């Protein structure tokens, strides 16, 4: 929910979501195809710069976001770097049972590269999340001909997450005031009754919402205004130039032995 607030507060909120999506997905694609340290570093820097310096997201928050998948990344890549081999490998060996737990130069490089590419890719998505609120993304998805059922579910879920969350918070607070979290047992009981109350209210709201939509001539499909922020030609040129440059750099890196 914090992410939602940050996206709305972003200085880049009023940039076209098409432009931002193109920047994020373009960088993501080039970065994953290139599998290169240099390109990953460039992508990470550019995305962070756009988010923090242009979008004015607080750098601390952006770093915190990036740190979130770090644990998962280190665990995942460590498994790739470390091998079990019958013969000793070139970097580091530890005798174990009949063979060695060993790290080779190649596997270490591969693991490091993978970690860098992953981190850079995640930064692309974070850039999009901290600058573009959900409704803008939905507009992009709609024009990409994403199935309407998915779109409509997104519209409704996004709106009602907040309504139901408010409800849950209010009920929990009221329970707190009546010592509903006095010990573990009461806390579990309170949680259960809060969830069932929210479920009941959600069902009630769903039927009210349906009545309200019927009153506005709902015909089974959500017809909505497809209005969004415009791009300036200069922005399009700059984004195109950047992506072309990045692609060219990726190509060069490949030809020079894939650093």
């Amino acid at each position, binding site marked *: 929910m914090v992410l939602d607030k940050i996206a709305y507060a972003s200085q880049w909120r009023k940039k076209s979501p098409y432009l931002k999506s193109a920047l994020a997905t373009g960088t993501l694609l080039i970065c994953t195809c290139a599998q290169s340290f240099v390109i990953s570093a460039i992508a990470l820097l550019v995305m962070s710069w756009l988010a923090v310096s242009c979008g004015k997201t607080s750098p601390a928050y952006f770093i915190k976001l990036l740190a979130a998948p770090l644990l998962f990344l280190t665990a995942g890549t460590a498994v790739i770097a470390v091998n079990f081999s019958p013969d000793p490998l070139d970097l580091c060996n530890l005798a174990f049972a009949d063979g060695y737990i060993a790290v080779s130069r190649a596997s270490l490089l591969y693991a490091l590269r993978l970690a860098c590419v992953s981190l850079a890719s995640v930064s692309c998505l974070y850039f999009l999340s901290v600058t573009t609120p959900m409704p803008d993304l939905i507009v992009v998805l709609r024009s990409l001909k994403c199935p309407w059922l998915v779109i409509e579910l997104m519209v409704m879920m996004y*709106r009602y997450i907040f309504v139901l969350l408010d409800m849950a918070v209010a009920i929990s607070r009221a329970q707190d005031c009546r010592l509903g979290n006095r010990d573990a047992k009461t806390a579990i009981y309170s949680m259960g009754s809060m969830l069932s109350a929210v479920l009941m209210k959600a069902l009630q709201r769903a039927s009210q919402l349906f009545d309200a939509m019927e009153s*506005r*001539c709902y015909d089974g499909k959500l017809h909505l205004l497809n209005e969004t922020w415009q791009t300036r030609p200069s922005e399009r040129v700059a984004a195109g130039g950047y992506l072309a440059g990045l692609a060219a750099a990726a190509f060069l890196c490949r030809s020079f032995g894939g650093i």
Partner: protein
Amino acid sequence: MTEKTILSVRGLSYTYPDGTKALQGVDLDVRQGEKVAFMGANGSGKSTFFLHLNGVYKPSAGSVYIDGVPINYSRKGLLQVRRKVGIVFQDPDSQLFSASVAQEISFGVLNLGASQEEAKNKVDAVIEELEIAPFREKPTHFLSGGQKKRVSIADIAVMEPDIIILDEPSSALDPYHVEMIDALIDRLSQRGITVLLSTHDVERAMCWADRVVLFCEGKIAAQGSPEEIFSQEELMELTHLKKPVIYQLFDSLKDAGMLPQGLPVPRTVQQLTHYIEHAKENKEQRSKTQQL
């Protein structure tokens, strides 16, 4: 207000699937441009009644006529009815489904078959008119109660209906927003729109309504001008309503001989103040003539 009857209801009854008799034989006629206030305890059937007026609920017995034509419950017929009769729901959170204000307002017009461009123009016009512009770029979940209410009225106003029904429009609002919503409703009436609303505020009904309709246990207990309705003590007791303060004050002033008998009941504080000033002047004049 014209003499033309825009809405009539005959023998309307409705029983919920669980057997609750929500409405039992309701008859009502509303004239074009009329301002009707519906009053009555919670659960007396006001909201259920409203949902019959645009065909969301189908009566168990009786019928609803819009412009003299009974509601046709086919898809096409309902579309016609809902183009003419719009409902603003009590709780904006069960009406607003989109996080974007402009998208939310566009839903109804687009359903009526407007093109994207037409819809955009109409949405912009309504946003301007209802003073939504300062928060149009905020997501729905960051709006205050009063702002949400304004958006939910815009939702309906943009469809340009002939009749607008508001279910307790000022509930849970602060006085500032109550006043703003009241002004907004007045503007709708001035455009010639027939406005039906439910309220618990007797003062508001007294000064606003052309007619007050009292609901009690699924039936219309009484209807008439605010003066007629609020003068009946037994009726007030039956529906647990209080006589408007202005009316009580007017009665006490008359009883104390400070106001002459036979004046029409004042509907606003200004009107009562005017009476008092007038009475005072008269008295002063009388004492002067006596001195002479």
